[in-house]
C-alpha cells in the first residue's frame, strides 16, 4: 500500500516557513560574529575614545549629564541601526548576486512572511549589536537606565525601520557599489548629523529645524531619553513618526514582494 502524499496544511500564516526564514537570517550573521557583532563593538569604542579625548576636559554638562554619558546612547543606537540595515540589505543583495534568491521566492512564503522574516532578522541583529555595544561601553561609561519602556520602544522601532529600509535598498541595488553609495551618502550622513555627537538644542534656530527633519534625530533622542532622562525634542512626535514610518515601510515592502518587482522575472 503506498502512503498518500498530501501537501502540508497550514492556516493563514505558514509559521514553519516564517520561522525558518527568520532563523536563516539570524544564523547568517551569527556565523560571522567577528564582523557583525565584534566589529561594531570595536568601532563604537573607538568613536567614544576619539570624541572624549578630542573634546578634552573643557566640555560642559550636556542635557544635565557629562558628555560621555550623553554620547554613549547615540553611539549604541548608531551601531544598532547600521547593523539592522546591513543585515537585511546584504542578505537580499548577496542572494541576488549569487542567484539563490529563487530559494526565497519559490517556497510557500507569502509576501508578508518574506517581509517579516527579513525585517525581524535585521531587528534581531540590531538588538544583539545594541546589547553587545552597550556592554562594551558600560566598561567605560557608567550607563544607567532611567526609563526602560521608551528605551525598548525606540530601540526596537529604530532597528525595525532600518531593517525595512535595508530591504528596500536590497531590492533596488544591483551592485555592491549601489549599496555602498546608499550607506555612504544617505545612511551615514543622517546618522552622523543626528545629534549623537552634539546637542541639537544648542544649535541656532535654523539648524534646529533642519535637525528635526532628520528621522535619526528622533530615534537617538528618544533612545537617549531612556538612559539619561532628558530629551532635546518631542518624545511623542518621535514615537508617532517612527510608528507611521514603520507601518508605511511594511506596506511598501509587502507590495513590492507581492509584485515581485526587480526580483521575479
Amino acid at each position: 500500500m503506498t502512503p498518500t502524499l498530501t501537501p502540508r496544511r497550514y492556516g493563514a500564516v505558514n509559521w514553519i516557513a516564517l520561522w525558518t526564514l527568520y532563523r536563516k537570517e539570524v544564523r547568517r550573521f551569527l556565523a560571522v560574529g567577528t564582523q557583525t557583532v565584534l566589529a561594531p563593538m570595536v568601532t563604537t569604542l573607538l568613536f567614544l575614545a576619539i570624541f572624549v579625548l578630542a573634546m578634552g576636559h573643557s566640555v560642559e554638562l550636556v542635557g544635565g549629564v557629562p558628555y560621555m554619558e550623553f554620547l554613549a546612547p547615540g553611539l549604541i543606537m548608531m551601531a544598532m541601526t547600521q547593523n539592522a540595515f546591513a543585515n537585511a540589505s546584504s542578505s537580499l543583495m548577496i542572494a541576488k548576486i549569487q542567484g539563490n534568491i529563487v530559494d526565497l521566492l519559490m517556497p510557500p512564503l507569502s509576501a508578508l512572511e518574506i517581509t517579516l522574516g527579513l525585517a525581524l532578522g535585521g531587528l534581531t541583529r540590531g538588538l544583539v549589536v545594541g546589547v553587545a555595544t552597550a556592554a562594551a561601553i558600560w566598561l567605560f561609561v557608567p550607563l544607567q537606565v532611567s526609563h526602560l519602556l521608551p528605551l525598548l520602544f525606540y530601540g526596537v522601532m529604530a532597528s525595525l525601520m532600518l531593517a525595512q529600509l535595508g530591504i528596500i535598498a536590497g531590492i533596488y541595488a544591483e551592485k555592491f557599489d549601489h549599496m555602498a553609495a546608499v550607506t555612504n551618502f544617505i545612511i551615514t550622513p543622517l546618522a552622523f548629523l543626528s545629534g549623537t555627537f552634539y546637542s541639537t538644542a544648542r544649535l541656532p534656530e535654523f539648524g534646529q529645524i533642519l535637525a528635526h527633519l532628520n528621522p535619526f534625530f528622533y530615534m537617538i533622542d528618544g533612545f537617549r531619553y531612556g538612559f539619561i532622562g532628558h530629551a532635546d525634542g518631542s518624545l511623542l512626535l518621535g514615537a508617532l513618526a517612527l510608528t507611521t514610518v514603520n507601518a508605511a515601510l511594511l506596506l511598501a515592502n509587502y507590495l513590492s514582494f507581492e509584485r515581485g518587482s526587480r526580483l521575479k522575472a
Partner: protein
Amino acid sequence: MMPAIPTHSGRLRRFGAVNWLGLFTLTRRETSRGLKDYNYQILGPVVSSLLYLAVFHLAIRTVGGDNGSNADLLDFIAPGLIIFVACEKAFENACGSFIFDKHERVMADLLMAPLSSIERVCGYLAGACLAGFAVGLAVALITLFFAELSLVQPVALVFFAIMGAMMHGLIGILVGIWAEKWDSYAAVHTFLLLPLSFLSGLFYRVENLPTLAQELVRLNPVFYIIDGFRFGMTGTGSSNPWVGAVVLLLVNAGLFTLAHAWFRRGYRLKP
C-alpha cells in the same frame, strides 16, 4: 628540412634590466581601477571626511565650552583626516585588487606577464599610492573651505605622505596576497588599521593623554605618519620628525622586503 630559426625574432619585445612598459602598465591598471568609479571611490571618502569635520565643528560649537581651548580643533584635525583618507585608500586599493583578482580568477594573467617580483611590488605599490594621493588631494581641496590649511614644511609633507601611503599600500599587498575572502580585508581594516589610526592622535593631541598612553602611542607607526604630515602642514608636531622618518623608513623597508619575498616565492598566488 627544418626551417632555420631566425636569430632575430621580430615579435619579441626586448627590454633591459627593468621592464618599464610592464611596470607602467601595471601601475596604470592599479591606479585606474581604484579611481574609475569616481562617484563612489572619490566622493565617498570626501563625504565621510566632511562628516567628521561637520560633527566635530558642531560638537565644539554646542558642547565645547567657552574657554576656547577647542577653537582650533578643526585646523588640528584637518591634516590628519587628509592623510588618513589617503592611507585608507592606498590600503583598500592594493588589498582589494588581489582579493578581486583571486575571486574573478584573473590572477594568472598577472602572474604570466613578464614582470620581476620587484617590478610587481613597485607596480602595485605605485598604483595604491597614486590612488591614495588622488583621494587625499580631493579631500584637501574640499577641506580648504572649512579649515585653515597651511604648508610650512613642504618636503616633510611630501615625505610623510609617501611614507604613509607606502606603508598602507604594502600592508594592503601583504593582506591581499594572504587573504582568500573579503572577510579578511574587513577584519584587518576594523581590528588593526582603524584602531591604529584612530588611537594615533588623529583627532586629539597626544599630550592630553596619560603618560603611559603617550608611551604606547609612540610605539604606533601610524602616529608618526599623522604627526609628520601635520608637521609638514603646520610646522609643529608632538614628536621629533626625524624619529618618525627613521621609524617609517625601517617599517617600510621591512614590509617591502617581505612583499618582495612573497612574490618571489609565489606565496599563496602560484600553485
